[in-house]
């Protein structure tokens, strides 16, 4: 087989980028500020519902309450294991929570 476009040895080879762009795309977004402690923060706890992930997050919120005074806790369990949270979940998190922790069970 002749590879089209590669038979002109003296001219080298011109080849195409196979990707949809750099892995780190410039989005203009940056990480949210990290608070120094959780006092007064409303903590969003997001899980995929697999295994004992909900149980773990409940225990985690209990542990966090021992070392800080959160302003509240919001539990979000994804509607389905394999897909991203739904719009309503995102809206609830971004409007009500000031920090968030995600986790999953397997």
């Amino acid at each position: 087989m002749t590879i089209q476009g590669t038979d002109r040895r003296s001219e080298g080879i011109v080849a195409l980028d196979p990707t949809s762009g750099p892995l780190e795309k410039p989005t203009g977004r940056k990480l949210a500020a990290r608070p120094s402690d959780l006092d007064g923060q409303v903590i969003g706890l997001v899980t995929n519902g697999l295994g004992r992930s909900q149980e773990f997050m409940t225990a985690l919120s209990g542990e966090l309450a021992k070392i800080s005074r959160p302003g509240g806790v919001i539990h979000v369990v994804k509607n389905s294991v394999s897909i991203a949270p739904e719009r309503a979940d995102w809206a609830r998190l971004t409007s009500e929570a000031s920090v968030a922790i995600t986790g999953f069970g397997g």
Partner: protein
Amino acid sequence: MAAGSGLASVIGMLRAARHDYPDYASLVEDYYERGWTDGLPIVPPTPESVECFLDHAGLAPDAILGAVPTRDVVVTAEHAAINAVMAGCRPDYFPTVVAAVRAHLHEKANCHSTTGTLSGASQIVVVNGPVRNEIGIECRGACFGPGFRANATIGRALRLVIRNVCRAVPGVFDRASLSTPFRYSFCFGEDEEANDWKPLHVERGFAPDQSAVTVHSTMIVCEVMDYTSRTPEAICDGWLAEILRRGIFADRFVAEANILIVVSAEHQRYFAQAGWSKADVRDYLWKQCQASGENAKRIMLGGPEGFLIVGAGGPGHATTWLFFPHLAWAITQAIDPASATRRT
């Protein structure tokens, strides 16, 4: 002009960045260093070769084959052609690659989950219809293994699209713990000529003379070797032991799963001798699952049609392979020859 098509050249329309190399060796090294390969050498995707592939499928470079919204990715025909060239495909394989990419990017094929999962799910491409014989898809002896260009490169092309375009790169969106060598390439054809079983694509609504691919995202592959069973029921019971032990799972998004069952020639023979159709096999499997008490809840197929049965392989080894699904539907997609599509 595009080779033989009478269409205007699309080389000027290609949007991919171009890179110059003095020779093949430096190109291969650079593509590897940039993370653009699966670790194996690639065929240079020159503008001329990509144009030739697009011409064979009758597609414009910017034709959209699908998207992965969670990754902000839209997959075009140009993307697919570049990666198909790299995989080592022949131009006449490209319509089959396009169909496989479209199938994998169907919403219910769940690309984001199946390519990002810790479990390292793989994509199995089953080819049906006349295209198998036209381009040399192996359906019989050793069809899962190396040595068949169409099988090897079509499966590889899909995986390169998943890597390079859908961004399923280890450490980025590929989070597999161990992954699997099935992710290099897994494509084969159904041996439709072996017996009178209805081909998979026909069972899923396509005409026998229509070529099609079915893409199944597989989490676990289980071989059931069974040299002692001599009846359809006994062979099925061997499969059921594994199916009931492992379960077949779906989530709320997928709702109902499919399991792909590839039956070798030796096992097919016993079904044929007893006059069992694929529907008979499915009905038996489904009834046994339903009768399995608590285990029935772990078989999330929705009905007997969730058993996707395919005959393949050469004679001699009495075996059946069970492909347990990841969280996705198996999607069957028609292969459109260039004559059925048109560049716009």
